[in-house]
């Protein structure tokens, strides 16, 4: 059965790109969310195998959403999406339980590999 993924990003453009990349890799997109609040709610409902989580978002940042997701499911597999120059934030994300990072602009091969590793790892 295909692994499920939830894609969280406030930009529709970014979500579409990630969806195309991950669907191309055989993932099933279980949900998309456009802000931190929505991410937490939808995570609770659909419990995806893996979540890609943008850091800079309205209504709760990615880091805050990550913390809540980790309390809902301490075993949650979350890949943070960050932009260059957000190194300080990646440290707190790791601390909060993020499994990996992908950096914008996305390199499709790299994104696919990282997400797959996190799901299988």
């Amino acid at each position: 059965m295909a692994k499920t993924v939830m894609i969280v990003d406030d930009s529709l453009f970014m979500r579409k790109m990630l969806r195309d990349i991950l669907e191309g890799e055989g993932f099933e997109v279980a949900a998309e969310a456009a802000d931190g609040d929505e991410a937490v709610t939808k995570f609770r409902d659909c419990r995806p195998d893996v979540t890609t989580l943008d850091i800079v978002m309205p209504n709760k940042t990615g880091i805050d959403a990550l913390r809540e997701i980790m309390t809902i499911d301490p075993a949650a597999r979350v890949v943070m999406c960050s932009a260059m120059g957000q190194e300080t934030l990646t440290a707190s994300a790791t601390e909060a339980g993020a499994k990996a990072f992908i950096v914008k602009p996305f390199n499709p091969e790299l994104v696919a590999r990282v997400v797959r590793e996190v799901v299988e790892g």
Partner: protein
Amino acid sequence: MDMSQYRNLFLSEAREYLKNIGNQVVALEESPSDRASIDGLFRAAHSLKGMAASMEYQDVVEVAHGMEDLMIKVRDGGLPFDAGIADLLLEGTDLIDGLLNDVAADLVPRRMVGDFPARVRSYQPGGAAPPQAPEGEAPGAPPSPAGQPAAAETAAAPEPPGPLATPSAAPLAAPPAAPLAEREQAGELITVRVRTELLDHLINLTGELITNKHRLLNIGRELGSPELDDAISENGKLLRSLHDEVMKVRLMPFEIICDRFQRSVRSLAKGVGKELHFELEGREIGLDRGILEQLIDPLNHILRNAVDHGLEGSQERLAAGKTAKGLVKLAVSRDRDRVLITVSDDGRGMDPQRMIEAALAKGVITQDEAERLSPRQALMLSCIPGFSTAREVTEVSGRGVGMDAVNASVQKMGGTLIIESEPGKGSSFTLRLPMTIAIIHALIVQCGPLKVGVPVTSVHRTVELRRDQVETIGKRQIFYLDEEPVQLLSLNRVLGLPLGRFPTGIVPLFVTEAKGRRVGIVVDRMHGQHELYVKPLGRPLSKLVGLAGGAILGDGELVTILDLADLL
């Protein structure tokens, strides 16, 4: 990965972010420390950068990155959001907008980003932003009129000396001819972005022209030349339409201020634990930028009152056979040259009789006056200073806090406030406002040595009384208007001048509304109604309470315009 499939999505989302940035900049200019807007602006620039990087549009990345960094300094570095930053951000959105147009036209998005990134990096607060990138680069600016003179100027200008010199803008190469033609075909040259100072200047000039028209009319009358009169009146018509057109340019949709209301109503409701629907109607209606700015506080006040006092809690609502959730509605509509803004709720409403009782108890009105108040006038009692802030009144009226301030600001904008209410059913507050402010009609009156203007929006009518029509009741003088007694006040006295003598036995006055009641304001003489171009008084006179501005009459005389709401 083939990125071209994402191009349209990129374009539409990027344009949305640009619009968003524009709105947030405007919002921050009003309240520069608004956290939500600062965060929102940062996010928009950040997202733009990320998207553009994915599309490999390097110039867009560079500009957006600069804007993002600037907002990080504001957010985390204590850099105050000032006009200079606003200008830089708007300049950045203009640059990106141009780049997006290139993308849309299937061109490689490359523009003269010039020294924008450098200026953003080195921005110091306090200094206004260095001059904007030459208009020739602005998207949609007509190529030759904007581009060429600017280029000529730069060529003629000597190297700017001194420490204030900024790196001059990148060479002003006109955009290549072919792409321009293509864009023109694509119909993208139909909009031009103009700085607001330029618009203000245009309005100033139009105002001066109208003042001058009155001067010409005076001369024409002296000369007694019908041909000249005809020509002037024809000119007057043209000026009227010029004025209307210029004013239209300044109109901005109500939308630019309404998001804040959505936010504040939501948090207010949360704060008092009430559930409500908030409806917004007519976001697209245009109002003068200046009026929009002045509307924020009064509307916030009215909305706060509606949530705090107007709406009942859900228990009380259910008991009254209403839905648990209350409704607060902010509706904007047009009525010829006026704009109506109505805040209504389906709450407990206001009871005129109880308002009157409370006013009596507070000693704000006499028994005699109380008996004469119509229900509508009784509701307007909530606008009396002192009365409106009284706690017990707030409770009985379900309204009140700061309504005097609301009423005063509405009148200052040349508008009127209408309160309607049905006990148990709800209330509505309607602001009837002019779309534009700079040109008003005013009644010119004489008081002793002074000639002053009174906006006709606050004049119900003018009356000439014979002395024997004035009655004295106690210390008050009154006259009867539509069989209702109306108190008389002397404008001379209000302005601290000696009282008028009225040698002809005729007492001229105009009727206005003060503290919810009609009053007759007696003056020495009426000079008729004039069309005035209102000018601000500037420092130090702007601090003088009771004056709303000044104007130049056709004969060159200067008059001040009274702010009756403040004076009475």
